[in-house]
């Protein structure tokens, strides 16, 4: 049996007395489509930060293709094929869209160690960057500065960058957050059409999106995995409904 694309084992993290991640286990098989849902403050983004190495866990392991990457830096993990998007755009705002993409490809392939050859002399990199933009219909914006784009277009650049990393595992942190609903379908179409080989974990609040996209759902409550299952199982789970309606008694059941 081949190893799962991403495996999280017994992950714990606390900020002071607040345990934001408790004994989380999570598996993404190759090509997985998993959604991570939960009420505000459940620790979803913290979990993404632990997986990508922004934060170090206090205990537990993260495995990428069976290799333990818990001790690796964020950058090392990214180079091994773990990509993410941010809940709030993290882009090179003063550079053009095209340069944002070329930078990503340059770092991926190690060109950025070169101090001598001019960046523009690598036609292959530029063509690949343009291909990524073509795929998301961003070509017309290639020479615009990122900060001049409307927020929805910027969200697409965020995804284009993650895809240009050629990831095996992709973590999408609320890809459509902050985008008016009239434009969000553009982003969700892109998400739905992702390469089937990439294992995807998506954090999303819009249940329509979750049920359309995900084959498996993990529900996170107060830092711990509350339950997981197929969309149907989750939809019909009384306790999950209760959590979303904020009924404390049901949460007590789980701990009891």
């Amino acid at each position, binding site marked *: 049996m081949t190893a799962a694309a991403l495996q999280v084992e017994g992950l714990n993290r606390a900020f002071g007395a607040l345990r934001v991640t408790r004994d989380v286990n999570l598996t993404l098989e190759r090509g997985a489509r998993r959604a991570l849902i939960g009420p505000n403050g459940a620790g979803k983004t913290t979990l993404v930060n632990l997986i990508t190495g922004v934060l170090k866990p206090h205990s537990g392991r993260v495995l990428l293709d069976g290799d333990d990457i818990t001790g690796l830096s964020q*950058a090392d*993990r990214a180079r091994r094929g773990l990509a993410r998007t941010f809940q709030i755009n993290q882009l090179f705002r003063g550079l053009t869209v095209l340069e944002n993409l070329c930078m990503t490809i340059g770092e991926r392939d190690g060109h950025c160690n070169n101090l001598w050859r001019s*960046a*523009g002399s690598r036609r292959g990199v530029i063509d690949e960057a343009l291909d990524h933009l073509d795929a998301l219909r961003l070509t017309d914006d290639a020479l615009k500065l990122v900060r001049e784009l409307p927020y929805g277009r910027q969200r697409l650049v965020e995804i284009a960058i993650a895809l240009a*990393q050629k990831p095996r595992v992709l973590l999408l942190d609320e890809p459509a957050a902050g985008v008016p609903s009239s434009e969000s379908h553009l982003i969700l179409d892109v998400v739905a059409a992702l390469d089937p080989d990439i294992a995807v974990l998506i954090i999303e609040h819009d249940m329509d999106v979750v049920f359309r996209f995900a084959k498996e759902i993990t529900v996170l409550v107060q830092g711990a995995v509350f339950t997981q299952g197929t969309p149907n199982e989750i939809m019909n789970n009384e306790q999950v409904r209760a959590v979303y309606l904020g009924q404390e008694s049901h949460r007590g059941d789980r701990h009891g």
Partner: protein
Amino acid sequence: MLDARERGANYLVRHHYFRWPEALPWLIAIACFFVFPNRMTFGGQVLIMIMFALSLDLILGYAGIVTLGHAAFFGVGAYTVALASLRLGWSEPISGIVVGGILAGLAGAVVGWFILRYRGLTLLMLTIAFAAMLQESGNLRSDITGGYDGLPGLMFDPLLGTFQYDLYGHTNYWYVLTVLAVIFYFVRRIVYSPFGQALTGIRENVRRMHAIGSPVHRRLVTVYAISAAIAGVAGALFTQTNAYVTLAVFDFDNSAKVLVMLILGGTGRLYGPFLGAAVYMILEDYFSKLSPTFWQLGIGLLLVLAVLFARRGLLGLAEDARGLLTGSERRSFASRRLVWKRDSWSALGSSAFDGAVIGFLAGFAVNLKEADLMTSYVTGMPARAIIFTLGGAAIGAGINAVALLITGRTAVEEPPS
């Protein structure tokens, strides 16, 4: 009409091509030699400061590293050639600057490795601390370094074994200009390389750089070492030019001055150091002749003006002006209906106040010969003081009114973040 794809590719492919205006600073530098043959000692000093500011531009303008201790590396280079000549009898100038550069670069790599884990204010304090530590260690061993009295009367061999250093600094000017050209070529290559691109990425958004797998710390240490090496070469040339060095090269003043020059010229544009260092040094020279006691007042006024009206430096100002004449700003001007808001009045009011303060101080500076104290200026020539103050207020408000009419923005408002 090219399609969007082709245009995008062309833009990046041609990004690093040589553009003719880039020849301008070099032509001016060469012309200066023939126009001001008597001022070549000063000219050499300007070129050295340009080199020093260029080293700072690489880390501040491109990688976004803020430092107030860059004089540390300037000093390492300066003392390397001084001590090599005095203690080891190694007086060959060119190998001297190479070794000075290498030692400063090594110092930059070691120090950078430690301090570049930090950013912002913490980093700023650490850079100051390092320069102060070097200076104080030099002071403790003043038997070697000569302390604040310095090491006078250093001797250097003729350049390439042929060209003697002359009293007018002619040889030295060409020597420094050549070294500057070589270093500039290196810096330009670095800036347009993929590595330089990555530095810009670190400046723009370090979190994103981590997320796309960039070894940020290694990149920063690399560029810090390169920048330190260039500062070291500038320091070595400084010692050779003056045949004299003191611990004052490590002064906080020196670090701050080069930062001011760079910001005055404009950061992250390669040519900011040329404009900034030249303007600063020429004005400093002019003001100090005008009034040996109060010359810093003139420099201070210049900086206040730069901060108010040229936030992105003189080159930024030139870019804005060009945009106004050729670009989108002019097109929109024709169709713009001026929206006069309450904000506009308060902006005019505050710029009038700024102008009044500047005008008052400028009046003092202009009348320094007769009024050597602020009180004698105010009481001795009240009419002039009032005229200068009111004139300053009118000019301040006037500049802002024009800016409002043309761009719809006031000159003092914050740029959109």
